Structure formats: structure tokens, C-alpha cells
């Protein structure tokens, strides 16, 4: 990891891979305080 220190989520998509279809498109949850959890990016 170099200079990245977190992620800004944009969109979460639920997929049926076999049918190749999108089941649901969600905005990432607002109540999850991203950045509070130290996560290494590999």
C-alpha cells in the first residue's frame, strides 16, 4: 500500500451471474462509517 488509505464506495450491485442479470442496485450503506475500520489494500 502506498498512498491509498481508504475507499469511497459508489454503488453496490447484486448479480445473478448465471442469468447475467442485475437483481438490485443499491447505494452503499450510509450507516457504515467507512474509514473507521483500518483495512489494508492489497
Amino acid at each position: 500500500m502506498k498512498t491509498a488509505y481508504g475507499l469511497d464506495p459508489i454503488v453496490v450491485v447484486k448479480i445473478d451471474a448465471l442469468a447475467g442479470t442485475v437483481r438490485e442496485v443499491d447505494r452503499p450503506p450510509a450507516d457504515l462509517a467507512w474509514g473507521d475500520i483500518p483495512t489494508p489494500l492489497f
Partner: protein
Amino acid sequence: MTGLYAYVRHPQYTGLAVVGLGSLLLWPRALVTYVAMLLACTTLAWVDEDELQAAYRAARFDRRVQKALDQAGPGRLIVYVVSQKWVLPDLPLEPVQEGDGGRREPATFDRRHYKVLFARPRTHAASPEGRSIV
């Protein structure tokens, strides 16, 4: 692609192949087993890649996703493709439920349903490139 993944697409399978090769030096009779393991790893890698790429393609070319990405503006993306059943608290995939804050990756899951997260790396660089991200 940078780092280890620039040279090795599947580090875990490569590690198994190297360990197997070492074992083969000690026990040459294991050649058939080693070859079978190589074939199994190669097949698994193909199957995994096909499934994950299919999930990514289905998500990427959906109009609603395209609109959300356009609104987010230009820049590099980090995309995670994980099973629908996996709970990964370090990724903002869904609201955390009471008592559901732990990491959970069940061994058996429906390989048909996936969650695809499009995210942007947060960096100190104004326009991150390659090594600035990873």
C-alpha cells in the same frame, strides 16, 4: 497490473504448485498426483475467473450503474466481487445488522449470486496512478 499480480495471476495456486514441486523432488512417485493437482488448480482458476468476470460484466454495463459511476466523476475504480452470502465488515456492502459484525465466508454458498462493489480509492495524491493505489 502492478506488484505480485503483474507476474502471478493466482498466487495461491502458484504456491501450491511450488510446494507440490518440492514434494515431487522428495517423492518422485507422486508425479501423477502432482499433475492431477495442477490440472485441478488450472480448472478452478478458469471457473473462478469466468464466474467473477460474468458478475462484473453484468454489473458494469447496467444503465443504473453506469449512471452512478458517471455521477461519481472520472477516476480509477477498485471493484470487489464477492459472494452474496459473504459478510465482510471491512467492505461497505450492506448495513451491519445486530450481532452480524464479524467476518463470515461460508464454505458452501450459491455461486450464482454475487455482490459487486464499485469504489474509489481515497488517496493523498490528487490524481492517483498505479502505485499510488497499491
